[in-house]
């Protein structure tokens, strides 16, 4: 079934077509939800709400991007809405965000991370930093876009990213050093 036919069938409420979308795009969507939510229970909630929105609005999909990108975009928006509602203090603590904090920091060498490990690393960070990492690194959004999306300043976005990178670099550099010592 091609994408256009699939979209048409879904917009008519064809349950088989909806199941097809669920099977094809669901696992990646669930992965996305896991990245933002940090736990399975919340991720399932976001996933559920996202797909309801997808099927409710699929007739408005114009085809400017791929269906996969469009669905992922709905997933991100739903996840952010969910986190805003559940964790109201999420983006309130930016008064201390200062541009002088920003450091160009990175890990000492190229490494390859398993998704599971990357997920564990994300979980070690505060939720707002997890979100910035997701939006900036994974979704490749600019600070301007992130600022607009989250209702914060661009500086705040940069500071949060810098803090997140710093924390992750520390952890990973320690692991890398430990690994080198073991060798």
């Amino acid at each position, binding site marked *: 079934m091609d994408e256009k036919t699939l979209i048409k069938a879904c917009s008519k*409420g064809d349950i088989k077509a909806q199941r097809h979308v669920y099977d094809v795009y669901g696992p990646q969507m669930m992965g996305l939800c896991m990245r933002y939510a940090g736990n399975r229970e919340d991720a399932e909630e976001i996933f559920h709400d996202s797909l309801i929105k997808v099927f409710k609005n699929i007739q408005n999909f114009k085809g400017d991007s791929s269906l996969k990108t469009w669905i992922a975009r709905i997933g991100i928006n739903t996840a952010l809405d969910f986190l805003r509602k559940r964790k109201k203090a999420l983006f309130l603590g930016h008064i201390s965000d200062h541009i002088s904090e920003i450091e160009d920091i990175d890990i000492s060498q190229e490494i390859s991370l398993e998704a599971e490990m990357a997920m564990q690393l994300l979980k070690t960070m505060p939720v707002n930093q997890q979100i910035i990492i997701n939006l900036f690194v994974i979704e490749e959004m600019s600070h301007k876009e992130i600022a607009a999306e989250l209702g914060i300043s661009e500086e705040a976005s940069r500071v949060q990213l810098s803090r997140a990178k710093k924390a992750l670099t520390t952890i990973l550099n320690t692991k890398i050093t430990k690994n080198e010592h073991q060798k």
Partner: protein
Amino acid sequence: MSTKNNLQNALKNAFENHEAPLKEAQWERLEGVLLSNKPKRIFFPFFFTSLIICFTAGITYFLTLNYGIKNEKSVLDSRNSYSSQNKFSDQSINSSNSTSQETNSLWNKPELKTFTPTLSNLNFIYKTIKSRIDKIIISKEGFPIATIKNETEKKEEISLIESGKSDFITEKSVDSSKDPSLVETIDLSLLTANSPIEKSSINKKDDNPLSPPYKPASKFVLSLSAGYSKMNHEIIEIKNNQNLHKDSRMLFEQSNQNPNIFFLNLGIDYNFLPRFNIGFNSGIQYLQINNHVNIKYKLNEIPLRDQEKIVGYIPLPDDQIKELNSNTTNTTTYINVPLRFNYTLPINLKNEVLLTGGANFSTIVSAKGKTIAVNEGEVKPLDKSRYNKFSTGFLGGIQFSHNLKNAWWLGSEAQWLSNKMNFEVGSGSIISKFQGYRVNLILKYKI
């Protein structure tokens, strides 16, 4: 060595095409919501009915058009027939020696028998008399049999008719016949009372001799129908889906596949607007649904519940796996009462098309058989308490009827109907649309 973006690349690659496994319960939850949000096709039946109406109206229009031409032709034929008859009459009865035997032979002429007296025909006869006939001998049924020429009487008769003192054929004109045994008098009021012409239409003064004969619709029609039906359940919602075993839906679908349906319908039509051919139909219908079920189900997981809500399933050890088998015929019977409007499109005097549409009210009478109650983990007898006591739906269709003899009509009907049903399973219920089409054979008696 550039260390730029090592961290970003590592994270990005880690989550590139990252997928997380899905649980079937997630789909079931989603499906429950999607089915309940599914756009209701409430307008579909109306669209369907409109389509049928347009289609039938189109066909009927062309048939009627054709009939109009045929009718005009038949009136013209009647004229010709009448003229030829007059010629015959002129030759045979325009003498004082005419006998009743001759009259009978005229009476037996097939073209005379097909001459049906209507107001239009009488009008035509009147005009003909004025122009060329002295006097008409007419049967009690109003068939013109012969004419008698007599200039004096002709003038007298025409003056009587024109002054309104004559009812077309007067006693006087009959009395003046040289052989009274040949002639029958005709009283216009008697004629109208015994003929199929409605008094109202006579009072209307139909001046068009080509008008088709008007036959009003019967006020009441009794009908008996039975036939073939192809219907199926379409699940539209699962109530408390989170409380039901994940196989509830599948088992319901398997238990209700391709039912055999028998029905018998006693109906009554009341034409409350006969002039517009609009009526109302109701009646009582016995409906029996038979489902042959042959399911061998292995219960190898039991639900893990948080209070009522199912949060997971626990696999059963092999020695505890239950087999829930059902090989039986489930029978449910219903009494239906349709309430619908109908519109009659007459094709001609012998054939008509009826368009019907309205509501259907149904109540369950009995339910027999077995059901795999997966939520209870056992096979249970099927009981009518599992079904909703009353259900409502829509039905619409198209009917073609042909006049067999007198008031008896035989017809066939194609119907589409849909009823909302509710089937209790565990602590939830499956709501379905029981819908499909029927083809009925109908015997009707018009009162």
